[in-house]
């Protein structure tokens, strides 16, 4: 029985850019109001082609829970940590607000949360997982773009998708070993 490694696999071809995931996350995790304050986001990619031959894709994203996480390396007080399942966490009490992690993250996945007075980011909805539920953004998605699961368990939905389809990660060159996998 090897240990868990949580990840999210995304099929962006199904994304209709409805932003339900963004609002769900804000509501679930008490993310303060304001456009700057968000744990996840959906990028509306450039429109391809010229009228009337157009194409566009939408890329939902969030903290990549990197296996080699620069944000964790740079954190002076170890406020940023990693759970046994690979979730990159921030301990509010220990966060001094130096924002070093924000400059270190290549994905702009972190923001300073005025309400809890600490840096905040996606937690894979750890509290929901413990309660036996899937992350809010995964749960609410109309077209079920995101699939959350333990990729160390070959029988998990996520593992199966990765086995079946070619996939990529964002800014692979950074060597951060992100754990958000995008099906191609």
């Amino acid at each position, binding site marked *: 029985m090897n240990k868990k490694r949580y990840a999210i696999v995304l099929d962006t071809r199904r994304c209709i850019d409805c932003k339900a995931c963004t609002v769900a996350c804000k509501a679930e995790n008490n993310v303060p109001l304001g456009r700057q304050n968000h744990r996840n986001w959906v990028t509306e990619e450039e429109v391809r082609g010229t009228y009337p031959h157009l194409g566009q894709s939408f890329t939902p994203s969030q903290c990549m829970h990197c296996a080699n996480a620069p944000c964790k*390396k*740079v954190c002076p*007080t170890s406020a940023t940590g990693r759970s046994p399942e690979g979730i990159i966490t921030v301990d509010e009490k220990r966060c*001094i607000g130096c*924002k070093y992690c924000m*400059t270190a993250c290549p994905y702009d996945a972190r923001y300073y949360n005025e309400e809890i007075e600490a840096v905040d980011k996606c937690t894979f909805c750890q509290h929901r997982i413990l309660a036996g539920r899937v992350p809010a953004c995964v749960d609410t998605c109309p077209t079920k773009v995101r699939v959350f699961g333990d990729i160390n368990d070959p029988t998990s939905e996520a593992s199966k998708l990765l086995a079946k389809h070619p996939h990529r990660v964002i800014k692979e060159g*950074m060597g951060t070993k992100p754990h958000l996998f995008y099906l191609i």
Partner: protein
Amino acid sequence: MASFTKKPGELLWFSLLGLGMLVGAGTALMVLTKGHSHMYNVSREVPWGILISTYVFFVVSSTGLCLVSSLGHVFGIEQFELIGRRAILLSIITLLTGFGTIAMEINHPIRMAIYVMLTPNLESPIWWMGTLYGIYLVLLIGEFFFLMKNHHKGALTMGILGFIAAVTAHSNLGGVFGLLEARPYWHGSFLPLYFILSALVSGGALISIIVYYNYQFRKIPLPAKYPHFLTTLAKLQALFLMILIFFIIWKIIPGLYGRPPEKYEATMAILTGPLAFNFWFFEVLIGMIAPVMILFTKKFVTPFGVMVAGALCTVGIFFMRYDLVVAGQIVPMREDTDGIINGLVSYAPSLAEYGIVLGALATCMFLYTLAEKVFDLEMKGH
């Protein structure tokens, strides 16, 4: 002990600084009550602003003063012994004001004090920054103590250790930026080296200012050895500046050559973009060209001339720090970020941020001029 001489000039000087400190204190209070987010313009995309760059400016100055003065009592270049006490004292003061500035930038300085001890992360350059500068501060104070006591042995040991601490701490500060792979403009071994070098420039510049301040402005009779010292300092300073220019050029070329992603955009932001005026006018013209011209012109190499050169350098360096900090973050990590103006995110300090900076500068100068009155900083002996 020099006595308080009631000079109108001095009164004005102190009241101006007092005013600056008041502004700083007032702003600090507002920031603490209203919360950073309502007072500062740092954002999700640009989390580090002018307070960080000002902090860097101060600690670089501190290091510089320490290094330059060590030329005297560590490397035994006679003339430099003169400014030993002053240099070390100002080095302490700049370091402290630096700490003050960053304390206003970090949201929870107290938490920091606690958790850097309880749960240190030895992988974190900022952890090392705090620790090393801490040690460095202690050594500086020790060195100052022995200098005041004319305890040469002690001063020497402290000086050597201080020198080492200064170089480690300061190159590590370069590392704080240089180790961020996410920020190509900063990433690499360049910044640690560059920080050490530019420290020398800062140090030289500040020394030429305090020398002038004491012997011209405060009308203390200028001892015979000073003119000689000044010409040496001028030569040295000119040399430092030339090397600095060479460094800057080699910072830019790799940023353009082959258009490395993100590094190129950041470099262009400096050369032709939002930071261009800062760069060409303040950094290049005021900070480098003008001083070099002065220092290479025989008839200008007077206490006044050297001081002017130093002052110009100092201004230039302040902007170098600002531009360096901003340029590193100006390229967004995501294309679709809010408020992108032709591919770049924008940052402009808020009134509050300016207020804190003003306060810090005022405090620094105030403490120094006060110290000049409280301590006897003339080097005895020899």
